[in-house]
């Protein structure tokens, strides 16, 4: 038995030492590899599925991209222009761009990627009714069935990333990600690891960071520990507890930016109670947003005062009266709508209690916590809420079959760099999956239509004001909080910039700290 124990001890210590060496190597060696960790797993190489990871890692590029302020800027296209009726858009490609396998980027190749994206129902390009994509040398022309001003913004979406012909297998599926960006794929170990190195073919200035290793880490606790122990240089998706840990640690800092995302309640305006605007207002007045934002998001300033955050300047009104918290007023609005408190505190009308089911999903850890906070706030004014944490797809499914009563969603208002595309979808007449439900307003429709078809700058500003004011007065969606995207960044890294739209992680702009 002694010998056996000795062998076991030896094996264990060997394993520990190998592990320790591997870990120390990573720390002491001169930095060459930037280690990035985040919750994003890669299950498919198709651009419309998990393609955002490859644009974020700067492996693939789209024709148009956006700068840190969310303005359109050239990507693989250096210039673009619409036809006079805006049904045809021509994009001139940058000169001298090559894919990582050496094939040149031509109009013909780009057209293939765009046509694929247009066929992909999840891509915003599919919503634009593309009739065809033509190529002529280094130019591509997108033909649309109806005029669309938003096409360049839609072409910032990762689903429209341009891949080399060699990326596709014989069955037409993407087999490898061969892009045009400053970094080329070294290895992809689905679903959790992607490593890249600087691409020799890159047409711009060579990035300072030689290689990048991305690791998907499912648990937020583990990610926070990786950030504070220096096992990753950039860590995305930290929970409030993890953020305080990072704040307390040396040699790592938090970077953040306000995202154009709003956590909001989607209400079914056909519901017997919610059809009444006074009930919707009562729900809004019942919410103590600063307290909820402080408790759940650890930042009081994230309490929403209107639908869109101040970072979307054009869509954030300084005129509109901010949403407020007033329990007395909430009760008064409910009473005016005919809902009187019963013996158990729950309000009733014609003998029916006001009971609502609130759906939400766990993809963002804040949502379930916020949902229970909303439940508690609404109970104070006599509205009984049942929280159901489920799959995100239950919300569009409930919209479709009309069974949805109330949902807490985290809606991104700039999936493509122009918020108008998402605003138009959110307020689509009658409703949309991630927008209003069974609600319509003529002023709203006209304002959206005016913006979509193009108008003068002044009238455009008026239309946006109308949209914001109508949303605030009618509350078909009740804004709860805005959203801050954050990352823990090691002091080894200089020049990290947080892109509010998360189009790319801008790794090519970072360098090693001296």
């Amino acid at each position, binding site marked *: *038995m002694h010998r056996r124990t000795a062998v076991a001890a030896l094996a264990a210590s060997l394993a520990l030492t190998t592990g320790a060496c591997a870990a120390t190597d990573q720390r002491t060696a001169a930095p060459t590899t930037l280690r990035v960790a985040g919750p994003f797993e890669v299950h498919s190489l198709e651009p419309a599925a998990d393609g955002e990871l490859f644009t974020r890692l700067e492996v693939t590029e789209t024709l148009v991209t956006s700068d840190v302020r969310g303005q359109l800027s050239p990507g693989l296209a250096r210039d673009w222009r619409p036809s006079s009726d805006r049904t045809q858009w021509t994009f001139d490609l940058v000169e001298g761009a090559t894919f990582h396998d050496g094939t040149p980027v031509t109009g013909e190749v780009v057209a293939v990627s765009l046509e694929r994206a247009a066929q992909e129902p*999840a891509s915003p390009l599919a919503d634009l009714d593309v009739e065809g994509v033509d190529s002529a040398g280094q130019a591509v022309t997108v033909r649309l069935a109806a005029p669309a001003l938003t096409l360049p913004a839609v072409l910032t979406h990762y689903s429209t990333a341009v891949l080399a012909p060699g990326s596709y297998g014989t069955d037409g599926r993407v087999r490898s990600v061969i892009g045009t960006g400053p970094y080329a794929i070294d290895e992809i170990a*689905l679903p959790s690891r992607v490593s890249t190195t600087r691409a020799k073919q890159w047409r711009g200035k060579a990035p300072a960071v030689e290689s990048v290793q991305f690791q998907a880490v499912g648990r937020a606790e*583990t990610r926070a520990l990786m950030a*504070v122990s220096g096992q990753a240089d950039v860590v995305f998706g930290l929970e409030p507890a993890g953020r305080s840990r990072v704040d307390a640690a040396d040699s790592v800092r938090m970077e953040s930016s306000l995202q154009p995302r709003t956590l909001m309640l989607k209400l079914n305006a056909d519901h017997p109670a919610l059809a009444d605007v006074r009930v919707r207002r009562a729900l809004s007045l019942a919410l103590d947003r600063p307290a909820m934002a402080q408790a759940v998001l650890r930042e009081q300033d994230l309490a929403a005062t209107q639908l869109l955050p101040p970072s979307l300047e054009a869509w954030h009104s300084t005129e509109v009266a901010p949403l407020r918290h007033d329990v007395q007023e909430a009760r008064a609005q409910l009473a005016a709508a005919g809902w009187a408190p019963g013996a158990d505190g729950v309000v009733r009308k014609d003998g029916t209690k006001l009971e609502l089911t609130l759906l939400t999903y766990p993809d963002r850890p804040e949502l379930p916590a916020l949902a229970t906070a909303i439940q508690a706030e609404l109970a104070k004014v006599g509205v009984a809420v049942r929280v159901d944490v489920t799959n995100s797809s239950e919300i569009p499914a409930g919209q479709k079959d009309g069974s949805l009563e109330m949902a807490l969603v985290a809606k991104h208002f700039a999936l493509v760099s122009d918020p108008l595309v998402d605003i138009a979808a959110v307020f689509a007449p009658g409703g949309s999956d991630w927008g209003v439900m069974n609600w319509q307003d003529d002023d709203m429709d006209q304002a959206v239509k005016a913006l979509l078809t193009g108008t003068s700058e002044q009238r455009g500003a008026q239309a946006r004001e109308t949209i914001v004011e109508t949303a605030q007065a009618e509350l078909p969606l009740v804004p709860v909080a805005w959203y801050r995207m954050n990352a823990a960044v090691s002091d080894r890294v200089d020049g990290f910039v947080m892109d509010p739209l998360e189009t790319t992680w801008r790794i090519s702009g970072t360098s090693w700290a001296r």
Partner: protein
Amino acid sequence: MTGKLTHAEPGTASPPARPRTGVPVRMLAGVLARRGVQAVSVALLVSVLCFVITLRLPGDAAYRIAAGRYGSDLVDSESAAAVRTELGLDRPAWVQLGDWLGSLVQLDLGRSLVTSRPVAQEVAFYLVGTLQLATAALVVAVVLGTGLGVAAARRPGGLVDRLVAVWVASVRAVPPFLLGLLLVVVVSAQLGLLPAVGHGTAASLVLPVTTLGAGLSGLVAGVTRDTVVEVHRSEWVRFARTKGLSERWVVLRHVVRNAAVVLVPYLGVQAVVLVEGVVVVESLFSWQGLGHALVHATFWRDVPVLQATALVLALLVVTVNTVVDLAGVWLDPRPRGAGVAS
């Protein structure tokens, strides 16, 4: 401390196992045939059950699959409708099940509904991950557990025995998630000795294996201790001593073999529990294994992956049981059942 064992005491029921070289072929063939039939019926049952349960789950599969493919920002009615058409989800359920069973007979597991990659490839990848983790953890548990158990059994009630009892109680009391987190905090974050996460390298295996192995070692130590103490006290061991065998031969020829008859089936059960119970540890350490695959496939209604994963797990259980049976036949070749009657 684990309770008293409920199995029949080996020494009281029958004489000690005689070391024999040959194992009856009929017995071996019997084990293999029985387990073969079991494997096929389990495969059928598990596939059909998985399918039926997925059908009965709330929520529309097309929406779930679309959410799995495109994420919560892009899932909508249009993408769900496209998924439904592409995968033929509006066909009657029995047609879909028939299709799957038909392909299964040809050893074709199909493609994942979410990732579109061949299921066999995906499941094989996750199976390797789980087997690596489970095997290494079992080795740690056996080495550590039997070592501690045998040491404790030398002097029941002595200091070592009491220390081992403390170890058994503590590792049993700490849930794997907490133990894993503690290890990450201490070994990885504070001391910086090992990476917290990762997959495929020896270094990244140490922490998850220690988490699982340490937890399991408590049970193994407890069972080993009790069994060895009982065997030691048995009449035939006393007889072996009386007839003048040295302590070394008593342990090797009588105690170890008889204790193993109890321990091996017990380890078999533990191996099965281990394979199924690694989900938490896998997620904590971002280790890609079957637990990970099973959770995702259920959440996304990825029926082919779900069926294949469950199938692999079920067959793994059958395999472990077969190995345990064969080991049992080898360790204790006394005829049983009908064989005894004849």
